[in-house]
């Protein structure tokens, strides 16, 4: 299982702009490189990343082979309510890795 890391402020004031960070350990193999035996390494990248705040999708990204290993994303949103942020990464094989973090909004 690869490791995913997220960083969300534990608390925020309603209406405050908060920064969110997410990183997943992933090789992001481009599909263009040759292995030591001269055979092309099959493409293996994270294709899609989605962050939801409660039920609402607040950020998503499509990723391409030019993105380096261990993709790291930082973005901001407005703290609206106490709840859970969920993060999902989907790779070429359709497998999904997820993470979540709680925020208390006052």
């Amino acid at each position, binding site marked *: 299982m690869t*490791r995913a*890391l*997220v*960083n969300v402020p534990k608390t925020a004031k309603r209406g405050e702009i908060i920064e969110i*960070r997410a*990183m997943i*350990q992933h090789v992001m193999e481009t599909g263009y490189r040759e292995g030591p035996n001269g055979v092309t390494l099959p493409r293996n990248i994270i294709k899609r990343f989605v962050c939801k705040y409660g039920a609402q999708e607040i950020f998503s990204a499509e990723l391409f082979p030019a993105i380096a*290993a*261990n993709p*790291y994303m930082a973005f901001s949103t407005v703290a609206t309510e106490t709840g859970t942020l969920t993060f999902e990464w989907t790779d070429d094989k359709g497998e999904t890795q997820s993470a979540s973090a709680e925020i208390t909004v006052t």
Partner: protein
Amino acid sequence: MAAGGVLAAFGIPAARAATKAAPRVVVIGGGFGGASCARLIKGEDRDITVTLVEANSTYIACPFSNAVIAGLRPLEQQKFGYDRVRAAGIEVIHRKVTAVDTKQRTVRLDDGKQLAYDRLVVAPGVELRFDAIPGYNEAAAEVLPHAWKAGEQTLLLRRQLEAMKDGGVVVMSAPANPFRCPPGPYERASLIAHYLKTHKPRSKLILLDAKDAFSKQKLFEAAWRELYPGMIEWVSLSSGGNVTRIETDTRTFVTEFGSHVADVGNVIPPQRAAAVAALAGVADQTGWCPVDPVSFESTLQPGVHVIGDAIIAGGMPKSAFSANSQARVCATAVVDLLRERKPASPKLINTCYSLVAPDYGISVAGVYQPANGLLTDVPGAGGVSALDAPKSMRAQEATYAEAWFKTITHGVFG
């Protein structure tokens, strides 16, 4: 004056005439690179006037200073003076450089004295970047020492470890490449773990890293599992090891994804070529010094050579051994150029020993040659200690490390 005028009339610059009389070389920086280079130039050609400018009258060597931190060695054994350098016929001046004029070929010192040179060698070493990690400045280093320049900082970290309670947490941070002594943070973690295991066995060490890979990694990690199981936690960049802020009042290392509170903290910040490199105009926008790998002449300032940790050395790591190898090549090149000979393309060697425990040494060796304007690994040369070497071999390598230190310090200062 008249003679100068006549020479100028024939199109020979006065400086060249002076060169023929008695060439003058000024070396700035009296470490493993600079002090060696000064002696080697004098050794190759007694007729060259060599002046070494070094701010400190006592040199405190970094190699083996991790053993001082671990309580295995007194700092006194790291100290060296310049008496033998003087005895070799070199003028040693303990002053700071305030300006370098590469057009007039002069170096100005903080007592106002001016030194003229035909060739200048700059071996400034590194300075720690106190602008790189928010919250980590010179004052913060009094609370969370860097100990990346041997001396008071080394002793401060030692005292803090001694004062720490059993069960405490030591947090270290290592910078991204390039930096002085690539295996150094991992040797330090090992030797601190040795101290903790021996004296404070319930304690732990967390090493936060801005990299995903490091020098002699497999050897270090195998040794940690064997000697210090569960004691050292290495947090790589992709595991959230990049430190983004230091909070000294709570001894907190803030990373991109969390924070770690230390009982004893050691921040090894990013580095750049020391300030005199910028004064001489030999550092580029990276903060390091590009050089011609054959002569070590700066690609930015003709007539100025740069060696040691400050340079962009391609595959060659920033180590005392490298600086010393470069000093040899540079000395010969400086003499050749002063005598109007073309320097030959060199091969350089580096070996870095690391102690994982007092009787457990590991090493990496490499051979380098100029290729595409950089020092490049010679394929198939060098290598690292075997992963499956017996204990006797590790003990032997620890004695080799000690022998290397004695040899190199004798060669430079003895």
